[in-house]
């Protein structure tokens, strides 16, 4: 055990301890302090930062595949949204007769659409353990099937990025359709309670925040152990020189499939934690721009550092909240500018600015003194 802990670097240690601390402190400050107190946390801030932590979890999941294995997924928002829908379906079935149409089984939108019976896809979602299982299985199975075909066919680089983007776009279009049975355009909302607790109460919000912080801390710990294992070293090897990795005998497609599936599951969990905190899930979560924004969080925070992705997600979304309030029309310009500046001046992101040890080396520099520059001659001396 202690041997395992030595593999967690200082950065991850700090982040994990900080997350555990806020998981305890935030509920205390939000619930146990009088509203006028200087230390009181208003409930809206708890919900807001709970949302940021979900994005941070998504960013860590993305960094695992992009930062360590070089798979630039532009469709991770899809796994996030699928996890979110699974949680949303559970929450919908908890409404019961409290809906507008008071149907004990069918959610409001189904009554409205004249659906007579609950679609098979919704069966079982009234049970929380079943919903939890689906939160893991649905994104996991999709990622496994997608990766099985993509990685076996050796689709890499920009082509892979494009088909991940196409995947999330296809899901966006599918979920917009009413006859898919997932609430179409409006998605799922009007949630009442989760495990019997009112989703909108301050106490539930604080608890959800604490759970999200703990899940994020646990994910950082596990991810850190994965990337420092030999398995993680193989992932980095694949990122650096894929065909070399293959020629020394590793089945690259299996490694990619494993890490891609794991990452999708983590993204799904992030989505599932997100939905009860924001109170709605609709097809716009599948929008390609969401997935691209997640890539920007990771780039800004520091690719291949895990903690960097989480930090980037929180900071960028904090900035987004501020900007869209103060200067809404300039947010996308600001985000674009930030991305360009970070790419140009901070290739290691914010974390790279702080830590001295390089995680991704810059392009090899030429001009070493020992290095002889000899062009391979076409005419060998034998013929002289």
């Amino acid at each position: 055990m202690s041997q395992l802990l030595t593999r967690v670097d200082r950065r991850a240690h700090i982040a994990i301890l900080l997350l555990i601390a806020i998981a305890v402190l935030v509920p205390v400050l939000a619930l146990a302090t009088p509203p006028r107190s200087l230390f009181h946390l208003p409930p809206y801030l708890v919900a807001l930062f709970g949302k940021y932590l979900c994005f941070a979890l998504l960013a860590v999941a993305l960094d695992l595949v992009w930062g360590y294995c070089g798979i630039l997924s532009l469709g991770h928002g899809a796994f996030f949204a699928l996890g979110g829908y699974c949680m949303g379906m559970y929450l919908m079935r908890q409404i019961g007769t409290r809906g507008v149409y008071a149907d004990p089984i069918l959610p409001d939108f189904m009554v409205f659409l004249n659906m007579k019976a609950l679609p098979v896809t919704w069966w079982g979602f009234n049970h929380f353990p079943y919903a939890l299982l689906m939160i893991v299985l649905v994104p996991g199975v999709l990622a496994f099937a997608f990766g099985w075909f993509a990685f076996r066919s050796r689709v890499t680089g920009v082509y892979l990025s494009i088909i991940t983007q196409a995947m999330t776009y296809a899901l966006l279009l599918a979920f917009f359709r009413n006859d898919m049975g997932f609430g179409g355009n409006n998605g799922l909302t009007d949630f009442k309670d989760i495990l019997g607790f009112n989703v909108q109460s301050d106490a539930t919000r604080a608890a959800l925040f604490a759970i999200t912080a703990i899940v994020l801390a646990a994910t950082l710990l596990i991810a850190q152990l994965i990337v420092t294992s030999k398995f993680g070293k193989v992932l980095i090897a694949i990122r650096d020189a894929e065909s070399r990795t293959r020629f020394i005998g590793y089945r690259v497609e299996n490694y990619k499939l494993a890490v891609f599936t794991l990452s999708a599951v983590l993204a799904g969990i992030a989505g599932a934690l997100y939905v009860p905190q924001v109170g709605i899930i609709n097809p716009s979560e599948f929008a390609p721009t969401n997935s691209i924004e997640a890539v920007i969080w990771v780039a800004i925070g520091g690719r291949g550092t895990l903690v960097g992705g989480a930090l980037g997600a929180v900071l960028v979304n904090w900035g987004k909240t501020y900007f869209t309030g103060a200067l809404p029309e300039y947010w996308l310009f600001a985000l674009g500018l930030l991305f360009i500046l970070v790419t140009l001046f901070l290739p290691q992101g914010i974390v790279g600015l702080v830590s001295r040890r390089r995680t991704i080396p810059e392009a090899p520099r030429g001009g070493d003194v020992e290095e002889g520059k000899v062009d391979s001659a076409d005419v060998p001396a034998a013929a002289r």
Partner: protein
Amino acid sequence: MDQATLTRSLLYLDGINVTFDGYKALRGLSLTLEPGEMRAIIGPNGAGKTTMMDVITGKTRPDEGDVYFGGSQDLTQLDEATIAELGIGRKFQKPTVFESHTVEDNILLALKAPRKAIATLFGRAAADQQSRIDRILETVRLSDHRDRFAADLSHGQKQWLEIGMLLAQDPKLLLVDEPVAGMTDSETAQTALLLKAIAEDHSVIVVEHDMDFVRELGVKVTVLHEGSVLAEGPLEAVSADPRVVEVYLGR
């Protein structure tokens, strides 16, 4: 070639044809390598040297022809990872190492050990792992650089690291593509010594342009031209062959 040659040889290529978009990269290439032999392959650009390596390592499937390893393994039916596990290691023309890993981790990854994802994620390191890494680092003269990132090594050091990674796989056959391209004279001389030492207990195929280097190796030479074997024999005999002189100087 007959059955006896097939079973006796470590590597057996017969009548290999490879065509890329109408361009015939290999036409009827045949070559056999005895166990324990070191062979130098020379030939002008476009002679098919790299394509031949691609065929042996499973990167390219030949349109026609047989490729057998160890007398029984049909390499045309296997993928890169399987062929690597059978015991064929390959060094690329351009040094290809894992730049963001340390020298030691580069060797560790190449070291003969279970390659499955489950094994690398949960498995324990072999007890003799460290001593094997130490021995290889010593062989390729990189013991003092073990903690440096591979990206920070000089060109020659990267070539040696890659040869070290090849050794770590403990292959029966090493394919080495232009090991001394871009090296200084002293690095070239050291590389020749290194390869000779390796050839003592491995079979090696070296593709090289540098004739002084090939002379230093002192082994049987195969000359490729336009996708097939033009001449084969000791370097002196081959370089006296008028057809070889024609190919190199007649252009």
